[in-house]
């Protein structure tokens, strides 16, 4: 179990929890950040932050502090040579 800000490019993960509360939690859920949803890093940024994630067929950019609010379970890689 880790948080979304630590997901490396190329890894896939499943969302497990949301730490955000109130309006921000609502907004994240509207965008598809819901436990059970699969997610991966879509692209970085010339300046490092924010990063964009692919989920439910769409792409959403989040700043690091928000990605930290999202709990994930990293999936084992499809070619099982090493596990992050």
């Amino acid at each position, binding site marked *: 179990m880790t948080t979304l800000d630590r997901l490396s490019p190329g890894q896939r993960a499943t969302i497990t929890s949301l730490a955000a509360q109130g309006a921000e939690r609502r907004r994240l859920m509207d965008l598809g950040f819901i*436990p059970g949803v699969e997610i991966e890093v879509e692209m970085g*940024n010339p*300046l490092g932050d924010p990063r964009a994630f692919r989920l439910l067929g769409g792409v*959403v*950019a989040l700043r690091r502090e928000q990605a930290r609010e999202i709990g994930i379970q990293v999936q084992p890689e499809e070619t099982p040579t090493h596990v992050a």
Partner: protein
Amino acid sequence: MASPHPGTQLLQTAASLRGEFGAELNDRLMESYLEESARIASGAVSRTGQRARLSLDRTVDRILTSRTLGFPLMLLLLWGVFWLTIAGANVPSSMLASLTMDWGAPRLHALADLLQAPAWLSGFLIDGVYLAMAWVLSVMLPPMAIFFPLFTLLEDLGYLPRVAFNLDRLFQRAGAHGKQALTMMMGYGCNAAGVVSTRIIDSPRERLIAILTNNFSICNGRWPTLILMGTIFIGAMAPAGLSSVIASGSVVATCLLGIAFTLAVSAVLSRTWLRGEASTFSLELPPYRPPRVLQTLYTSVIDRTLIVLGRAMVMAAPAGAVIWLIGNIHIGGASIAAHLVSALGPLGWLMGLNGVILLAYIVAIPANEIIVPSILMLTLTATSLEPSLAGMASPGVMVEFEDATVHQVLTAGGWTMLTAVNLMLFALLHNPCSTTILTIWKETKSLRWTAAATLIPLALGFAVCTVTAAVARALGWV
């Protein structure tokens, strides 16, 4: 005791159930919505060919937002858009100018003579109102008809959210909202529209920062001033083949300086007057869409070009009238314009500009579009020039010249490279036009913030121009 209202009972039940299920309930509901909609979608939506599109999108995105190429590509696109605008607008602009001024104005005068209209009336209406509108039409229509479709095309492709994505870190450092990158881009079309677009920012603190800094986005009305100065003073120094590249480079540089001021002023505001928590940022990056060229042309010509142009013409008419009046009403042997120019002269000199430019900026408060024609007209009427040049226009008549003649007139009026560079700086850093000021008041309902939005850029303009003038003089460049 009255029996409890059924609504009250319902709320009580809800509260007790909420205690029982906890905050989990909402999450469970969302999860089950998602499951159900995924089930429906998988049965009803076919996705042939989507994989290939997806991987192409991803490749393009990774290049446009990459560490090495992200910013250079942004600059290159910006440069390309301005270069196409500058290079492409030249010919249609001079065609429109010769149609409305060389061909149209004399015929209108002939018509006025035929109707035996008094000279003051035909002068006021034709040389004042009509020529001001004709100038705005010929100077603004061609660049806008090129710039807006190009910009709309980028918007349509889905590139602008990527720019906001690339720039977000800088805005975050400045304590500003990520969406400010988007409202800033709206400002490149029109600052009044940019100010209205700040409604997308929820936090009042960050919205005010976006409003107060929107004027650092160079609007439509100011591009012609920058393009003309860039072309006749800066581009002209470069070898002939490179001049339009260098000219568009100087416009891009001014634009980047505007972004630097946006970030710096945002940073200062978010640490002083408008201190507070930075709010969160999430931005959907829509997939790239093939641009619908015809629709883009239609919407950018109708919705943007014509509306902005219409506003400019409505504003130019009274301004043209005012210029004609102050150029033709004489007090104590000199026109009002001449008195004002000499009164503003010392301040203008301090700022590396001159009295004519400052007066033009006062006349042009309703619309930045008419800065350059006002400057040319006032230079010809209110300053003493060689007779050969002074003979080109009667007092208070807005004129259109070829670029080379403009350069000749301005140089004769005492202009140097410093004047041109400082005019570009002052075009970036001065008070918003009256429409924008009014919009800021409508959006904030606060005299204080409206005054701040007006005076901050103006004060910066005075300071920056005075410093560059002092430095240039100290180093003996002028």
